[in-house]
C-alpha cells in the first residue's frame, strides 16, 4: 500500500497531461473507421499508413469534438496551426506526429473539482494517435523484446491532449481531477474515456518542494492505466524524490514508467536523452480559424456539465455537496431533482441515492414512483428497512411502491401492536428492563433487537424506541 502522507515540511506539486481519443466515426485525416478492437491492420489506408505521396485531410467532426471539449473546460478557442513533431518510432507511420505546438486550438481554461477547487488547464490541443507495438519474445519489455509487431489500426485516431497546470498537491486531488475530467468528457459525448482500453491515458508530472519554495525538478510518469495506479504512482514518486533529496542526492528530470506489479516507477529516459522534436508548421494542412458563430453554436449545444449539475442539486434542493457529487457521478441527479420536485423529502431521497441506488438500472427509475415511495416512508407507512426493500424491487421491476408494499405484506403497525411488542420485550428480559429504568440507555438496543427479530425486521424501530422511553418515564414518575 502506498502512503498518502508526506513527511512534515514537504509538499508535492502535480500536473496532469491527459490524452483522450475522440469517438468520431472516422480517423483524424482519412476515412478509415475509428474503432477499438479490430483485427490488426484492417482499419488502414495509404493516408494513415503514411505511405509515400499520401496527404492528410482534416476531419471536421474531430475539430468540433475538440472545441466542444475545450469549451467544456472553459477554454478560449483560438486560431490554430497543426505542427509536425518529429521523432523516430516504429508505431508512428510517418516518423512524425501531426499535433499542435505553439498555436493550439484551446487555451487557458479550468476544471472544477467536486469540492469547488479550480484547477487550471493550460491547453487542449488536437493530435493524431500512433499505432500500437506488441513486443514478442525476449523478456516482454521494450528493451528485451525478440521482435515487434505493429498494429496501425489506432494510427491517425483523433486525440485531444489536455495539459493541466501544476495546481494539484495530493494524489487524491489528481484522482478527482481525472474522474471529473472523465465525467465531463462523458457528459459532452466526445469519447468513451476508458482508461483500461487506452481511450483515456494519463501522464503525471510530479515534483516535491518545501512549502513556499520554487518548483522542484519534475519527473513524468507514464503507463497509468487506472485511477488506482495514478494515485499509487504519484505517492510512490513523491516519496522517492523526497528520499533522494534527504539522502543528499538530487532529482534528475526523467520520464519514468509505472510498474503496477512492483509498485514502483522506473527510468524510461532522461532529459538528456530526450528527442529534439524539431516542431514546424505542418505544410500539408491549412490553419484553422473557427468563426465566432461556430464557437457560439458549440456553446449553445453544450449539455449541462457535472459541476453545473452538482450546483443545481445543492442550490435547488439544499443537498450537501459531497452527496450531490455522488448523485451526479451516478447520473441520478435528474431523478433526485424530479423526485424532490414531486414533493419527496430531499433528505430521504439523497439517502437512498447514496446508499441504495448504486445499480446502473436505478437511472431508469420513475421519479413519480420514487417520490411516492419516499412519501410512504416519511408518512410512516413503511419503515426504513421496508422502504429499502421496496425500492430494490422497484429498480428491478419498475413497479408501483404501494403495490409492492402490499404484495410483501408491509403494513404500518398501529400503536396498539407496538405497545404489545414493548410488553413482550420487557417480559422477555426483566433484568435489562431494570438497567434501562436505572438510566442505562445502552440496553435499549437489546429491546429493539428483540422487536426486529420477533417481527422479522418489519417493526418501526423509531416508534418502538419512542414507546419504550414513554414507558420508562411513566415508571419513574
Amino acid at each position, binding site marked *: 500500500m502506498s502512503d498518502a502522507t508526506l513527511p512534515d515540511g514537504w509538499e508535492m506539486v502535480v500536473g496532469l497531461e491527459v490524452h483522450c481519443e475522440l469517438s468520431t466515426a472516422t480517423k483524424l485525416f482519412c476515412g478509415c473507421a475509428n474503432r477499438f478492437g479490430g483485427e490488426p491492420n484492417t482499419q488502414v489506408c*495509404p493516408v494513415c*499508413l*503514411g*505511405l*509515400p*505521396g*499520401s*496527404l*492528410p*485531410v*482534416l476531419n471536421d467532426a474531430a475539430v468540433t469534438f475538440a472545441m466542444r471539449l475545450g469549451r467544456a473546460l472553459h477554454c478560449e478557442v483560438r486560431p490554430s496551426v497543426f505542427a*509536425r513533431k*518529429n521523432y*523516430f518510432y*516504429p508505431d508512428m*507511420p*510517418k*516518423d*512524425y506526429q501531426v499535433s499542435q505546438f505553439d498555436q493550439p486550438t484551446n487555451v487557458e481554461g479550468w476544471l472544477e473539482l467536486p469540492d469547488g477547487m479550480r484547477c487550471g488547464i493550460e491547453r487542449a490541443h488536437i493530435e493524431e494517435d500512433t499505432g500500437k507495438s506488441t513486443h514478442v519474445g525476449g523478456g516482454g519489455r521494450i528493451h528485451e523484446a525478440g521482435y*515487434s509487431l*505493429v498494429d496501425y489500426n489506432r494510427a491517425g485516431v483523433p486525440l485531444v491532449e489536455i495539459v493541466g497546470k501544476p495546481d494539484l498537491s495530493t494524489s487524491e486531488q489528481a484522482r478527482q481531477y481525472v474522474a471529473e475530467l472523465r465525467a465531463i468528457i462523458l457528459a459532452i459525448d466526445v469519447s468513451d474515456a476508458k482508461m483500461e482500453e487506452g481511450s483515456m491515458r494519463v501522464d503525471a508530472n510530479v515534483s516535491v518542494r518545501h512549502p513556499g519554495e520554487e518548483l522542484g525538478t519534475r519527473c513524468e510518469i507514464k503507463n497509468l492505466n487506472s485511477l488506482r495506479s495514478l494515485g499509487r504512482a504519484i505517492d510512490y514518486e513523491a516519496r522517492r524524490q523526497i528520499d533522494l533529496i534527504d539522502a543528499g542526492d538530487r532529482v534528475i528530470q526523467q520520464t519514468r514508467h509505472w510498474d503496477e506489479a512492483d509498485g514502483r516507477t522506473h527510468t524510461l529516459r532522461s532529459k538528456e536523452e530526450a528527442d*529534439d522534436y*524539431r*516542431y*514546424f508548421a505542418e*505544410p*500539408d*494542412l*491549412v490553419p484553422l480559424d473557427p468563426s465566432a458563430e461556430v464557437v457560439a453554436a458549440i456553446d449553445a449545444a453544450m449539455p449541462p456539465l457535472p459541476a453545473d449539475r452538482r450546483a443545481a442539486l445543492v442550490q435547488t434542493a439544499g443537498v450537501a455537496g459531497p452527496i450531490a457529487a455522488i448523485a451526479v457521478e451516478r447520473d441520478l441527479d435528474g431523478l433526485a431533482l424530479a423526485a424532490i420536485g414531486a414533493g419527496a423529502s430531499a433528505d430521504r431521497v439523497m439517502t437512498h441515492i447514496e446508499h441504495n441506488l448504486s445499480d446502473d438500472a436505478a437511472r431508469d427509475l420513475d421519479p413519480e414512483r420514487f417520490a411516492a415511495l419516499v412519501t410512504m416512508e416519511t408518512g410512516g407507512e413503511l419503515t426504513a428497512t421496508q422502504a429499502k426493500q421496496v425500492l430494490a424491487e422497484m429498480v428491478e421491476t419498475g413497479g408501483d411502491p404501494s403495490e409492492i408494499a402490499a404484495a410483501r405484506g408491509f403494513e404500518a403497525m398501529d400503536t396498539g401492536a407496538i405497545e404489545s411488542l414493548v410488553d413482550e420485550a420487557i417480559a422477555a428480559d426483566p433484568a435489562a428492563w431494570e438497567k434501562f429504568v436505572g438510566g442505562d440507555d445502552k440496553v435499549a438496543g437489546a429491546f429493539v433487537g428483540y422487536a426486529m427479530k420477533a417481527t422479522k425486521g418489519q417493526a418501526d424501530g423509531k416508534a418502538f424506541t419512542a414507546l419504550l422511553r414513554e414507558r420508562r418515564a411513566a415508571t419513574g414518575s
Partner: protein
Amino acid sequence: MTATTTTASAIAAAVRSGSRSAREVLEEHLAAIEAREPELHAFNLVTGDAARASADRVDAAVAAGEDPGPLAGVPVALKDNLCTRGVATTCSSRILEGWLPPYDATVVQRLAGAGAVIVGKTNLDEFAMGSSTENSAFGPSRNPHDTSRVPGGSSGGSAVAVAAGFAPLALGSDTGGSIRQPAALCGVVGVKPTYGAVSRYGLIAFASSLDQIGPFANTVEDAALLLEVIAGHDPMDSTSIPRPAPDLRAGLHRGVEGLRVGVVRELTGDGIAPDVAARVTAAADALSAAGAKVTEASVPAAIYGLSAYYLIAPAEASSNLARYDGVRYGMRVDAPNTPDMNLATRTAGFGDEVKRRIMLGTYALSAGYYDAYYGKAQKVRTLIIRDFAAAYADVDVLLSPTSPTTAFAFGAKSDPLTMYLNDVCTIPSNLSGDPAVSVPYGVGDDGLPVGVQIMAPALGEDTMLRVAAALEATR
C-alpha cells in the same frame, strides 16, 4: 511527319476522330524509345504492355462511339515520384526498391480519365533533389541535344522524354525549378503551376510547401492542354485551391498587345551567362515588337531566395523523408534492434545529396537554431511574396532567364553550392507560390537550347501562357 514529331493536340484530335489509332501512335513512340533510350536513359521503367492495353481501350472506346477524352491516345511519361498503382515508384532511390504503391496519384487518375496512355516512369535526381539527374541512384539521363551534357533536373527524364520524341507530353514536379530548368536545358516547354492549382496527392513529397506537379510539352498549347486535364480542386489535398480547372487554350493566341512585361533586374545581371542574357533581351525585344509594353521590374528580395530555399526545402525534406525507416516498405537492412535497423537502412538506402539535405534540414529545425535559420528563412519568404506583389502592381508578367547557363557537362558542377546556383532564377516562384513557365528561345554560343522564364501572379496561368505562346510564335 511521324507521330513522334507531331503535337499532343494533333494526336488527340486524330485519335478521337478515328483517323489514327492510339495503338499505332503508341507503337511509333515505343519504337522511338527502343531506338534511343539506351543512350539517353530517360526512363526508370517503360510500361509497354500496360500502355498497349490502355491504348487498345482507347481505340475500343472510339470504335464504340465514345469519346475517350481530350488526351485520347496521347502517350505521356510520368516522373518516377508520382504514385502509380501496382507499378514501381522509386524516386530514383534505392530506399524505395520493391515498393508498389497501392494507389494512383490524382494526376494519374485524371490522365487515365482523359484517355492518355502512360508509357513509363522517368528518371530524376533522387527524391527530386538536384539539377542534373546525376543524383539518381540508377544513373543519370543524358541531354538529347548533346549526350555529354546533363539534361537538367530534377525532372530530367521527363524533359528528355519529350525532347527525344519518346512522348509528346510528360509530367514532372517542380520544387525549386525542377520542371523549368530541365525544360530549358532540353529545349522544351515546362510549366510550374500556381501552388495548389494541381493536386499533390500521390506526388512523393520533397518539400511540401514548394512542390507542384506540372507539364512538359513541345509547344505551349500542348502544355496548356495537359495542365487543363490535371488542374482543378482535389479534396484529397488540403492545399488544393477550391476552383475548377481553368480554360487555358481559348485565349492562348490572343497576342500580347497592351500587356505589360517586366524584365526582373535582380535575375538578369551577375551570374547569368552572357549568351543566355542575350536570349532574354531578344525575347523582351520580340515581345515589345509584338505589342507588349516592356519595362524593367524589381523583386529586391529575390536575391535571398536561394538562401531561404536551402533552409526551408531541406527542413521539410528532413521530416518528409523520415518515414523511409525500413519498418513498413522499401529497403530494410537488418540489425539487432529497431534504431540500428533504421540507421543501417537509411545509410544504405539514401544517396549523398539526400543525406546532405536531411542533415541541413534537421540542423535548421533544431532547438536553438530554429529562429536563426528556419524562422528567418520564412521571413524572407514573406518578403519575396511582398516584393512580387509590388512588382505585379505595375506589370502583368515578369521575364527572366530560366537557368543561368545552357546544359553543362557531367561532373562540371560537383560542388553542391555551384550546383545549387542553377536554381537562382526559378526558386523565387516556388517560394511565392506563383506560376512560371520556361519557353525555349533559341540557342546559346554552344548551340544548346536556352529557356526564357515567364512568371505571373497566382492563378495567372492564362495570361502567362498567352505571353509564352506569343514568344513561341516569334521564334
